[in-house]
């Protein structure tokens, strides 16, 4: 199986006042296509930093991050944006739907950004993914008219609608109750199995970790388990 993501000796430092905080210290990790991978660890262990690097919203201080075979440290902002748009789907801890748009429009948004898909196909794709997350009936509802679980499902549909190679989820269940959270993870898992989409999610919820094919544990900026 090919590696869809590869990290080699990645170091990430953040300036914090006069100090430098090391979020990742010499991390190497390979993720294969179709994996359902969980990143776990306590707060401040570097989970979010790792996801940001894989999600191409941040670049490493040193080392190489390869996403879909491309070294993101060597790409321009414009190229990174395009890479995110075409290859990566995001599921956020706080859902991050655009409040002024309804569910349909939120899901449609990345397709509009891609720009080359016609209206009819867009519509068909959006409805297909809303159906997958079970929200065809709520297509015209605005985020504030939806429950937390429904919002996260809209976010999942939005993340998947471009058929990305990788879906990143940063604590996708943190803002949900345990039942809804479990349902969301079920949904992600089933899509992973049907579509062979790579899922990488961070969590510190032990119940959620159980679903993962592989568990990568981080502590103090280093991988302590599951690096292979």
């Amino acid at each position: 199986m090919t590696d869809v993501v590869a990290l080699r000796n990645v170091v990430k430092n953040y300036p914090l006042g006069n100090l430098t905080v090391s979020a990742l210290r010499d991390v190497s990790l390979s993720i294969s296509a179709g994996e359902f991978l969980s990143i776990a660890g306590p707060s401040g262990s570097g989970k979010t930093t790792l996801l940001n690097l894989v999600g191409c919203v941040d670049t490493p201080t040193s080392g190489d991050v390869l996403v879909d075979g491309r070294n993101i440290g060597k790409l321009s902002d414009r190229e990174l944006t395009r890479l995110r748009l075409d290859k990566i789907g995001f599921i956020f801890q706080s859902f991050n739907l655009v409040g002024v748009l309804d569910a349909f429009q939120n899901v449609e948004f990345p397709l509009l950004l891609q720009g080359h898909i016609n209206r009819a196909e867009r519509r068909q794709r959006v409805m297909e993914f809303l159906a997958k997350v079970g929200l065809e009936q709520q297509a015209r509802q605005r985020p504030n008219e939806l429950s937390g679980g429904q919002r996260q499902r809209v976010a999942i549909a939005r993340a998947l609608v471009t058929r990305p190679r990788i879906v990143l989820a940063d604590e996708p269940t943190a803002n949900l109750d345990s039942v809804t959270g479990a349902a969301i993870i079920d949904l992600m898992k089933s899509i992973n199995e049907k579509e062979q989409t790579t899922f990488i999610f961070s969590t510190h919820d032990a119940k959620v970790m159980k679903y993962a094919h592989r568990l990568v544990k981080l502590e103090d900026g280093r991988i302590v388990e599951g690096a292979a």
Partner: protein
Amino acid sequence: MILLRIALRNILATRVRTFIIGLLVTFGTALVVLGGSLLSSLEQSMARSITGSVSGNFQVYSQDARDELELFAPPVGTPRIGEIKDFPRVKSVLEKVEGVKTVVPMGTDNAIVFSGNLMDILLGKLREAHKSGDAEATKLLTDQIRRNVGLMKSQVGNLDGFVSKTADFDMQRKLADLDQAASPDFWAGFADDFETRITFLENRIAQLAMDERMLFLSYIGTDTEEFTQNFGLFEVVKGQAVPPGQRGFLFSDFIYERQVKHLIAGRLDRIREKLETGLTIAADKALANMIQQNVRQYKDILYQMDTDASARVLAELRTFLGSNEQEPIPLLQQFLAMDDGNFQERYDFFYRVIAPTIILYQVRIGDTLTIQSFTRRGYPTQVVVKVYGTYRFTGLEKSALAGLYNLMDLMTFRDLFGASTEESRIENEALKKKGGVADVKKEDAEAALFSDDSEPQEEEGSSALLDEYAGVDMKAGGRRFTQDLFDKVYTREEIDTGVTPNAAIVLDAGADERKAAEGISAAIAAENLGLKMVDWKKASGLVGQFIDVIWIVLVVAILIIFLVALVIINNSMLMATLDRTREIGTMRAIGAGRSYVLKMFLIESSVLGLGFGILGLLLGSGIVALLNALGIPAVTDELYFLFAGPRLRPVLLPSHLAVAFVVVFIVSVLSTLYPARIATRVAPVKAMGKED
């Protein structure tokens, strides 16, 4: 499409912000529309007033002028604007320029006209009546003079005790003279000792009357024929225009009614006019003041009536007022103390009964007028000119500014100006031969003024027409003003040749002003005419620049409003950017580029700007339409002139809308650039983590 939706949703989501920005943008746009419309309408009406009356579209004058040409400057002194060299050539060159209809020569100046002392006039009439043996007139005039002297005596009567105790011998002598003239003995022997006693009255009493009035007149000397034909607003009110080619004077009807007319009558006219506009004597201080002035100036009525007339008028007045008052002064004062209730009937009584017995106009149409002025070299001079009538500019009849200038022919103007015409030069030569007087040079002027032996006036034998200044001026003052001169018809060549301080250029109707200006400038340069050209705005002085001042005020006001709008929009968009950091971060993470974020903000502010801009356009247009329907009333004389009539009706031009639209668009885009730039810098990382 989705961007537009996001923009609209954002605008609707933040109502307070939208309301404030909307208010500013709407108000600013409306102001641009309204201000633009008002000012360009004002400019048009002013152009109508000024170009149609005095200035023409352009004025030309000597490029060596020491002062700037200011047609509507306050009438102080003679502007030193030099003279146009070789006017006939200037005229022929400039009239060939495309769009130029004609070139009218002119000059402006000020002069003083004395009304003459009433006592002097009466005594003069008495002498004549006596000489011709008209017994009835002699009696009537004698009675009137005696009555007036009696009134003068009674006026100073209450000062008597005080003055007699002073050491002012001059004053004491005057009082003694008055006592003598008012004594029954004086009049008992009047007929027998006519020459001695009338001389006494002329020399000692007339000067005590002090009822002379001075008129300060501003006038334009011009080719009257060309002027009347080419200034579209010109119209004769009373009398007739000056016959082509002849000497003559036309009063501005405004001046004639305000200053030449009997002061009390003139005030009554003005009070009536004001009452018609809804003012009341009770409430308006100015009107009450005018009534008070009338009461104080009863003399102007009483002294002018002969004794027969006054007996008749006073009798009618007693009946009219239902009064038993026998003394004329209290009776007249009672009559003149009018109020809102009785004004109209007393006004009618005044014109029916009193007016025919007094001198209603100091100068009547058809009379001659003696005008005193100073030549440009500073010598006093005077000319006599026939008054043909009065004129006004249509639609501007109530404007003091439009009525500022009286009109006279160019020949008379040159005489007053001290310009040497061919005619006066020949006459001067003759004078010199006859009187053996050397031409008075500038530096000798003072000597000439105070020397007794070099005055030519005695030899000229024209002293009847001259006052104490006469004779000093060798050129005009020494000339005889006879019927011959009034009847003489000057040729076009004669009129065009001679001193011409400035000239009005009148364009064909609908000619392009800018193009014509270029043509004229080019012709002036090419033919080396030595002229300076100014447009009507500049030529009219402060009045014309008034519009520029308002333009500046408006532009500054608009700038300030839009600057405030800019700052507020900028600020609130910046706030919105910070509020929406997460949303922007999310969009960036999902794959929206920086340009997309920029577009999102620009569209939002454009929608805001255009939406409220259009609202502002509608509001502004609505106000303009309303003002157009109602008309803005000209509440002062100045406004009357500027509005070219009683009301300004502003008109909306597409250019006003276009300008407003462009301005508001630029402002809204400009005010978003910085916040939008900040927004594009929001990192996609901002989408991550917990919500704040």
